[in-house]
Structures are given as structure tokens and as C-alpha cells.
């Protein structure tokens, strides 16, 4: 196993799947040159017929991915920043998400959308949003949120093989993270959470870039004799309710850490699910550590005030650890 970065892992998965299935192709802005990471020889390997640079026309090329999928190909469509999905919302939410259902199950739409999200320091509100909360309430889209290189590769490969539209959110802050990643056929199923760290006093359900923050906190609190379990749902739709409830049943206390804004966040959704299905397991209120309900501001101290860090998870935990 090689220790590689998140971006390298993504490209490993991409290249393997493109070699496996000649009907896959990549379309997006600057994809031949690779704006946010690249793999040596990627373009040379697949050529201009399978790696297509798009004009600045998000509605156009997101929709073109839908049509190409209908007609039998397997597009991998890159939307540079998740916030740019707003320019293509009709094609994503009205078309990609709904057309299989609305045609009575006639059509397959095997599209993978790769996008980057989250706050990385000074990108300001139009480039820092998580965006997946807006898609949680659009039935028909699977939502994937890897927290490290190995999952990134395994989830991306599963997303590409899936016959439904899947959006893979890559948090920009994770791009350089390194980890041992299995070579070759490493598939992480969609809908299967991971226990990133076992513990018994409380569960932190952490999404995406919140996972490393939760693990760092767990390591720190260990010295105080507090034992945290960290669960990474890995996919928000489908959601592994069983794994989440099993952990809450074990620790009886839960904080959900999500970089999305509080209202309508994945944390809110997961919290509500736990309240409905796991109420009897709880010894304390469910807590959410999320971004506050303000657009992500540019200035670093303001961004820090909006985005939840390790300290926000800790604050929430202290309230329920008693």
C-alpha cells in the first residue's frame, strides 16, 4: 500500500475506472490541465475524446452529462466548486435527479459529479459553501463526502459504477492529506459508515473535513480519560442509520459535527433521525456543531468564527458529558 494524497487517490480511482469502462469520460472546466491536482499523463492516456474541457457554461455541461448518460455513456462531470452548481441547479435537481423516477423507471442515469466544497481560508462566501444540504432534500441524488484518501478512492470508484446520479464532495482542506491507500480494486460501498475511532463515552458523527478535527479532539480528550467514538457516515444519501444508531446505543451521547450552516444541515437531518429512532438510547440532548447561519466571510478571523473547528465540537461535547 502506498501513502498517497487525497488528490492522488482520487486520480488513481478515476484512472482505474476509466480503464475499466470505455464508456466513461470526463467533462469540466480545465480538466485537461487539472486545476486542483492532476495525475501525470492523465490527459495523454485518455485523449481529447474522453477528457473534455468545457466552456464556462455550467448549466450547459451539467445538462449535457444528463443527456449523455441517458444515451448510454457514463459521464464523470466536474463542477469546480460546489457553489457553481447553483448555476446549473435545474439540470442537477430537476433533470438529473428526477428523470428516472418521472419516466417510471425507464432510464438509467449513471453520472458522477465531482465537486469541491468547504472553507479553506479566504475564499469568501461564493466559494466556500458545502452545498450538500441543499441537495439532501432533492430525492434522486446520492451524496458522497469522503474524509480521507482511502475512502476518497473507494467511494469514487463505487460512485462511477453506480447507475444513479452521485455527487462526490471533495473538501478542499483535505486535498493534501496523506494516508495508506489500497492499490487496485478498493471499493467502498455507498451507504456504509465507518467507525474511525472506537470509544465509549460519547459519539461524534463527523462529516467530511470534520472527521480529522473529531479525531484530533478524541486524541486530546483521551488524556483526560474521555473516550470518544468517531463515526464517519461517508455517504449522506444513502445514510447508514444502523451504524449511527448502534454507536449511539453504545455511548448514549452524541454530537454531530458538520461544516454546513446549522439550518437544514446534514447534522439537523441526522439528529432528527436519531431523535426519532434512537430516543431511548440517549442520556443527554443531541448536539450539533455546525457553521453559524451566516455566509462564510472572507477575513480569516471571521471565517474562523463561522466555521466549526475542534473547539466547537468540544464545546458541544462538554455540554452533554456532564
Amino acid at each position: 500500500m502506498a501513502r498517497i494524497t487525497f488528490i492522488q487517490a482520487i486520480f488513481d480511482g478515476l484512472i482505474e475506472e476509466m480503464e475499466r469502462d470505455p464508456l466513461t469520460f470526463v467533462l469540466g472546466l480545465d480538466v485537461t490541465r487539472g486545476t486542483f491536482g492532476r495525475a501525470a499523463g492523465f490527459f495523454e492516456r485518455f485523449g481529447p475524446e474522453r477528457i473534455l474541457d468545457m466552456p464556462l457554461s455550467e448549466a450547459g455541461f451539467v445538462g449535457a452529462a444528463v443527456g449523455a448518460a441517458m444515451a448510454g455513456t457514463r459521464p464523470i462531470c466536474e463542477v469546480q466548486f460546489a457553489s457553481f452548481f447553483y448555476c446549473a441547479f435545474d439540470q442537477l435537481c430537476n433533470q438529473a435527479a428526477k428523470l428516472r423516477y418521472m419516466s417510471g423507471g425507464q432510464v438509467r442515469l449513471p453520472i458522477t459529479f465531482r465537486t469541491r466544497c468547504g472553507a479553506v481560508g479566504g475564499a469568501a462566501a461564493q466559494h466556500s459553501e458545502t452545498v450538500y444540504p441543499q441537495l439532501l432534500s432533492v430525492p434522486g441524488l446520492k451524496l458522497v463526502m469522503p474524509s480521507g484518501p482511502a475512502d476518497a478512492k473507494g467511494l469514487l470508484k463505487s460512485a462511477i459504477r453506480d447507475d444513479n446520479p452521485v455527487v462526490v464532495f471533495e473538501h478542499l482542506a483535505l486535498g493534501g492529506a496523506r494516508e495508506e491507500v489500497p492499490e487496485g480494486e478498493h471499493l467502498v460501498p455507498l451507504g456504509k459508515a465507518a467507525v474511525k475511532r472506537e470509544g465509549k463515552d460519547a459519539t461524534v458523527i463527523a462529516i467530511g473535513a470534520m472527521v480529522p478535527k473529531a479525531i484530533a479532539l478524541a486524541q486530546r480528550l483521551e488524556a483526560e480519560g474521555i473516550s470518544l467514538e468517531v463515526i464517519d457516515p461517508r455517504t449522506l444519501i444513502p445514510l447508514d442509520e444502523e451504524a449511527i444508531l448502534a454507536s449511539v446505543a453504545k455511548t448514549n451521547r452524541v454530537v454531530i459535527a458538520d461544516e454546513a450552516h446549522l439550518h437544514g444541515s446534514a447534522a439537523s437531518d441526522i439528529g432528527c433521525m436519531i431523535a426519532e429512532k434512537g430516543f431511548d438510547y440517549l442520556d443527554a440532548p443531541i448536539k450539533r456543531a455546525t457553521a453559524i447561519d451566516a455566509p462564510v466571510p472572507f477575513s480569516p478571523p471571521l471565517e474562523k468564527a463561522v466555521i466549526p473547528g475542534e473547539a466547537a465540537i468540544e464545546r458541544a461535547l462538554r455540554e452533554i458529558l456532564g
Partner: protein
Amino acid sequence: MDIGKELVLEMYRKMHRIRNFEQKIKDLTTAGEIPGFAHVSIGEEATAVGVCSALRPTDRITSTHRGHGHLIAKGGDVARMMAEIYGKRTGYCKGKGGSMHIADFSLGILGANGIVGGGIPIATGSALAAKLAKTGEVTACFFGDGAANEGTFHESLNLASIWKLPVIYICENNGFGEFTPTAAVTSVKDIAVRAKGYDIPGYVVDGNDVFEVYRHTSEAAARARAGEGPTLLECKTYRWEGHVVGEGAFISGKYRTEEEVARWKARCPIIALEKAVLESGMLKRDELDRVAQQAREEVEAAVQFARQSPLPEPSEANEDLWI
């Protein structure tokens, strides 16, 4: 040339202000003193200044991610701009916007924009308001060649055409959208021909010739004020620097040749202005040098102001969302 000496000096001052400002932004971002993404417009000064010099103070503009030049040309205060880019509380947006989002509504600057093509409908709406209120104000809308492939561009031109709105669409064609050559992703060689599809006038303009840009904008503004509707001006220009400061982190290898960059540097819009006014005898070298020196000092003072300004308090993150 029907442009008076005072206006020419003012154009020269603004072009120098932009050049110095952008150079500072580049240096300070490279040095790690400024956070975030910065897109500078060195080499494109004549378009921003030519357009805004033909506008009235009450006219409005919309700008882009590469917007510092437009803002300075419309009269933006370099100290408050610099403070914003430093993320300071004294900045135009109290540190909430940063480089890509500076606005000064009191000067008719409706804002830079982080979304490519995001400002085009806004400019169109601004022109609609001027028409409804019969104010005679014109809106100038800056955007890149890349943005001319967004649906917002096409929808806006159609709206402006059917309503005969007082708006001037200014496409700054610098040959690239990020690292992709415009020609590789654009159906036409000249964006200006797209005006035909919306039955409005469209012109290709030398975007490095401040006087030509000024003349075309003046004509378009006169048409707009006369109720004759929108104009599309495509200003051909070039960005000397990378797409974003420190673009090496985003791309390896070359996407344009040294010769191409050198060719455009040889067509420096500031030197072109100097040559024209020295040759015609309108201005003397020392008059120009004095203005250039002042512009340098203003930018230096702006950096000092930004450095000395306080950062916002964390609690300020909760302010300004609602009225």
C-alpha cells in the same frame, strides 16, 4: 483627439494607480501577507479606465473576480480596497468580501463578483431601474470572454435588447478562461458578433488603446441615454500575469508561450498612452512622471493604512446579514 488634457492626465493617473495596486497585490500575496485568491489585471488597464472615463459619477458598473482595475477606474478608494483585501475592518466590506467582492454603492460600483457571469443580469437590472425611474443613468457591465459562454450573458443581452435598456456590455477578451484558450471553447472568434443574435450593435475594440475604448464607450453611453438601447463592446486585451496569483499551485506546465506574453507586454497600454500624448505635445514627460509618482505614493499609503487597520472581531461575523 477630442479629449482634453485634464481628462488624459486623469486617465494616466488611474492606469498607474491600477498598475501599482495590482503589482502590490501580487507581491504581498506572494509574500503570504494577504490571504485568499487574488486575480490581478496588469496589462488590461486601458479597458477599465477607457470605459469608466466615459461614464458619469452617477452611472453604475458591475465587475468581476478580476475587478480591482474596474473599481479604481470608477473612483474606488485604494486604501479601503487594500484594507478589504487584507481582511481588515476598515475595508470596503468590513472584511466580509475580500478581493473578489469589493463594492462601493455610493460610487455606483455594484460589486465585483466571485461567480463568472454573475454580474451580467445585475447590470441589466440596474439599467432596467434607470429606465423605469428615467434617471438617464447608464450601467457598464464588465465581464470576461469566458463569461460570454454563460447563459446569463445570453439571457441578459436578449432582455436588454427587447427593453432597449441603457447598458453597455464590456467583454474583456484576454484570450483565456483560467488556463483554457478562449478559442478552444468558444464558437466565434469575436465575441462582438454575438450582438447580432440579439439585434444590438457590437464592436471589436482595441482594449489596450485607452482612447479607442473611451470613444466607443462614449458613443454607447450616448445611445443608451437617448433610449436607443444596449451595446456590446469586445475589448481585446491580455493579462500579463497568471490567472490567479500563485497559479503554479494549480497548474504545472505552460498554457501560453513566453513569446505571446512578450508580444503583449510590448503593447503596454500605459506606454501607448505616454507615446501618444508626448508625440502630440499635449503633455510633457515631467507632467506624466509627477502623476506616476503620486500614484505610487497613494498605493504605498494604502498598504500602510491596511497594515495598521484592525482585524474584525469574531462577533462581527453575525452582523450585516439582516437589516
